[in-house]
């Protein structure tokens, strides 16, 4: 499970789950994340799961590295995540005005737009982690035929709601921001909704996500936009 535990600075614990990146290893990371979260250990200020790491930061006024490490090593880990995860269906419009990198994908992958979308839509993806900016989900794995590097020159501004792919992953830009992933569509839903303070993100680590296509008319009339 955890291959190595070390300190990251004087106020965080760094748990390394090994070099590989796959759903199985990430599921372990998320099981640790949810188990530690549930224990409400005094002094923990944040727990950050990613592909193959878990970082636990703490308040040095309340606890130190060796005491917390001890507690983490003795946390009973949930055996299954099944009842803790949701399945979310995300509508996207893939008209050319939203699918900003469809030409690049056509050329580089040697697939038509229809083939690209058939390979991408209506499949279950797994949420490895959420972050960088608020609510941005890192999802995978996409079909081998669709895997491509980032843009040579990243965009200065990626429109909010853009759905984009690179390597084995896809994500949703929850804010307008710089970015270099290949954009294939745009969703009208609020993936980060700050008005819902208890749960502002709709996609959380461990969740399953699929995308379905909507028309531009449906996109424009989507009432939560």
């Amino acid at each position, binding site marked *: 499970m955890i291959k190595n535990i*070390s*300190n*990251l*600075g*004087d*106020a*965080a614990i*760094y748990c*390394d789950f090994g070099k590989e*990146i796959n759903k199985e290893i990430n599921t372990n990371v998320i099981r640790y*994340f949810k188990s530690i979260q549930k224990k409400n250990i005094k002094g923990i*200020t*944040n*727990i*950050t*799961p*990613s*592909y*193959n*790491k*878990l*970082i636990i*930061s703490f308040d*040095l*006024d309340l606890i*130190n*590295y060796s005491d917390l490490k001890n507690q983490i090593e003795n946390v009973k880990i949930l055996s299954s995540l099944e009842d803790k995860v949701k399945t979310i269906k995300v509508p996207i419009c893939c008209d050319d005005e939203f699918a900003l990198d469809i030409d690049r994908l056509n050329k580089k992958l040697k697939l038509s737009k229809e083939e690209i979308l058939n390979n991408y839509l209506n499949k279950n993806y797994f949420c490895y*982690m*959420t*972050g*960088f*900016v*608020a*609510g*941005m989900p*890192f999802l995978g794995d996409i079909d081998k035929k669709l895997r491509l590097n980032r843009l040579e020159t990243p965009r200065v501004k990626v429109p909010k709601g853009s759905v984009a792919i690179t390597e084995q992953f896809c994500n949703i830009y*929850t*804010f307008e921001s710089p970015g270099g992933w290949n954009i294939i569509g745009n969703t009208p839903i609020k993936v*980060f909704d*700050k008005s819902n*303070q208890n749960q*502002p*993100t709709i996609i*959380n*680590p461990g969740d399953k996500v699929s995308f379905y296509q909507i028309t531009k008319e449906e996109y424009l009339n989507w009432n939560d936009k």
Partner: protein
Amino acid sequence: MTNSFFDVVRSGINSTFQDLGRKNLYHIGLPFSGAMDKRNFLISNNLVSNQNNDPVLEFAYQGPLLKLRNNNINFAITGDVNFKIKKSSSDIINGECYKTYILNKDDELDIISTNKSVYGYLAVSGGFKVEKYSDSYSTTTRAGIGANNGNKISSNQKIYINESKNISASKKLDFINSRIEFIRILKGTNFDYFSDSSISKFLSEEFIVTKLTDRMGMRLKGSKLENIKETNIRSEGLIKGVIQIPTDGDPIIMLSDHGTIGGYPKIGVVISADYDKLVQLSPNTKIKFKLIELSEAEKLYKLYKMETDNLLNKIR
């Protein structure tokens, strides 16, 4: 009786409401935020007899120009800050930090600039009347959350102040912000990605704080640090104080509003005891790093905490 409020005549460069920060949301992409210089933040609230975690107005470089309306208030400014009180009678008082003042209705408070430092704090007795988001007042502008609807304050807006009973209490603290010779660090998780000569440069040469520095991060320039393993790692969590070395070889230190996930190797992490002094380093300042062990960092934090508590107890 209606609440007092400030009319914001000039907003300043980066004026935001902050408290001690927001916990437990890294996993959805929200940073800790909170006051950059925690010690000066705590002193400001204690001078005006507020709770430790009440929201204060943090400003950077140039601060705001505020005109008080309705009633009198008691305020204090901390940091190394040049400010003036312009009385409605047109008298001008040169302000001193670490001391409370009474501001009367229709007086102006002109926070001109921070001196050879970055952040200053304005606390008012009773506290600012602003809203919490997820249990914290701290403003995270990039996500648009926290006090003031997640935004910096802007010119022509109003800032409301809670009523306070003890505005006549006059308090002060004898305190001067000391400079720091070295920023002390612990080894990062990718310390061994860098060549021996780069490590030796990193720990002996001076680095310059560049203008590309804000609440999210501090970019440094100096000798390029050469990564001999991989220049990208798999994206993973970050914490404040992490020193990342991107492909170009120039260090970036993660500060309180940092992105929660990043993929550059971590050469080191600034110790908690030195964070307040780190964030106050203004562009063009030269700094040096010193590598220490975890046990020493923990001792230094205890010392830092003791000093802070002593300062708060010395406020009279």
